[in-house]
């Protein structure tokens, strides 16, 4: 068994062990089912809820908002990062702000966003972008910093135009760090949007979880939580696998 497979096996075994322990604790009454329901019930509830079609609109709403926030965050963050990278003065101003950005709880601006933009998708998208874009910006700066000066010299030796230099040298060289930013952005966009729905929105999966919680409908709440968790893990897993493929080329072995 290769080392990578062994690590994967142990990881799955640890997770399966935790889930099995939870199942046993819930079934034997060690954990009150009013607090947590058994994982098998969570799965059944998730299948019931998602299969019934009653959540279709919420699912479409939430994930389209997340995708929109993610795409905007990647676009705006990359562009802003590239602009700041070009100017050392702008960099001096932006660096400490970016470093302390995540100490600001952006959710406190949600009421303001609702007042400005209404109760629709817009405040949620803005909240998602506010959460995700700085991560992309930070990773863009770090990615552009990581491009070796000798590769830029090489571009000049080969008389590459600025666009070709960007496309053939700068972007591929910076890609590993850009990718880390994209991964973070997806997580932040997801957290931003679902938390936004949870707090104030009248639609979406976050709202559905909040509604189930307030109605003491534990079964529905845990089923929906599991669904959101699974989607987040699968989306991140796809990016993680893609990143791994890129990284393996660049590392020995």
């Amino acid at each position, binding site marked *: 068994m290769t080392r990578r497979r062994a690590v994967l096996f142990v990881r799955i075994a640890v997770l399966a062990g935790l889930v099995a322990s939870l199942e046993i604790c819930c079934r034997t009454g060690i954990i009150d089912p009013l607090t947590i329901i058994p994982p098998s019930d969570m799965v059944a509830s998730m299948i019931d809820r998602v299969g019934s079609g009653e959540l279709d609109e919420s699912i479409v709403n939430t994930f389209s908002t997340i995708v929109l926030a993610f795409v905007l965050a990647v676009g705006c963050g990359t562009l802003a990062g590239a602009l700041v990278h070009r100017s050392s003065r702008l960099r001096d101003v932006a660096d400490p702000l970016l470093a302390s950005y995540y100490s600001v709880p952006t959710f406190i601006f949600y009421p303001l966003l609702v007042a400005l933009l209404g109760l629709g998708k817009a405040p949620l998208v803005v909240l998602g972008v506010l959460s995700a874009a700085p991560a992309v910006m930070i990773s863009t700066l770090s990615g552009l910093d990581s491009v070796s000066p000798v*590769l830029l*010299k*090489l571009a000049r030796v*080969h*008389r590459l135009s600025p666009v070709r230099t960007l496309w053939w040298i700068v972007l591929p060289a910076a890609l590993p760090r850009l990718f880390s930013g994209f991964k973070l952005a997806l997580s932040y966009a997801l957290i931003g949007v679902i938390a936004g729905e949870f707090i104030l929105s009248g639609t979406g999966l976050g709202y559905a979880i909040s509604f189930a919680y307030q109605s003491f409908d534990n079964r529905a709440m845990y089923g929906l939580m599991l669904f959101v968790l699974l989607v987040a893990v699968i989306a991140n897993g796809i990016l993680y696998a893609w990143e791994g493929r890129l990284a393996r*080329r*660049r590392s020995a072995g």
Partner: protein
Amino acid sequence: MSAAAVSEQSHVALNGVVRHYDGPPAVHALGPIDLEIGRGEFFSVVGPSGCGKSTLLDVLCGLARPTSGSVRFEGRELHGEVPDGIGVVFQEDSSMPWLSVRQNVAFGLRTSSLSEKEVAERVDHAVSFMGLAQFAGHYPAQLSGGMRQRVCIARTLVLRPRLILLDEPFGALDQQTRLLMGDELLRLWRETGATVLLITHALDEAAMLSDRVGVMSARPGRFIDMVETGWPRDRDSRIVSDPKFGTLTARLWSSLREESLKTMGRAA
């Protein structure tokens, strides 16, 4: 001799080249330098650290403009752009980690108007010439430092440059690999007929490989000695056992010692 006559005879000609860097503090990095390199010559430059060897290379290939003076390649003056026909190999590893060996070598021809078949032929030739055929599908991270540098040389080779500039290309390699890479370089020089300018800090490397060695002073770098080696064109690293090799290396060191002491802040 008129400038026109000089440019007809020499492949590369530098006339009164001076390079300053704007401060603060302003630095007079190079010159004045007058130099002619003949077509097909193997010319090396040695000098103390920080004497402006790399600046000379940048000016020579058009990556940097001289503050005053002129640089001519094949009779045409350079104006801050690398002209067609010049290939450069850098000291730092400039292989692209996201491309395979073959793709790295083919990178040099991405902007060429050659047909796919011609590109493939040139790439195959350069890859096998540098002994990389078995590793064509490997990525740089899977290769040793010496092999990565060979990839960079192959990438320059596919362009069929008439002037090859090498900026301490073997600086990061161990002594044995350097000697063997020196042999590869001599073979490349003989078979392509290109003019080669090698910047190096290794006196033995310069003495072994070159037809002529220029010794530079401490900053601002100027040529303080020109040493003709007199080696036959068909040579390899075995000439290090020739007594003349020791004499040449000793002469280079005696020219350079005082200048090296200056860079350490000490008089001779």
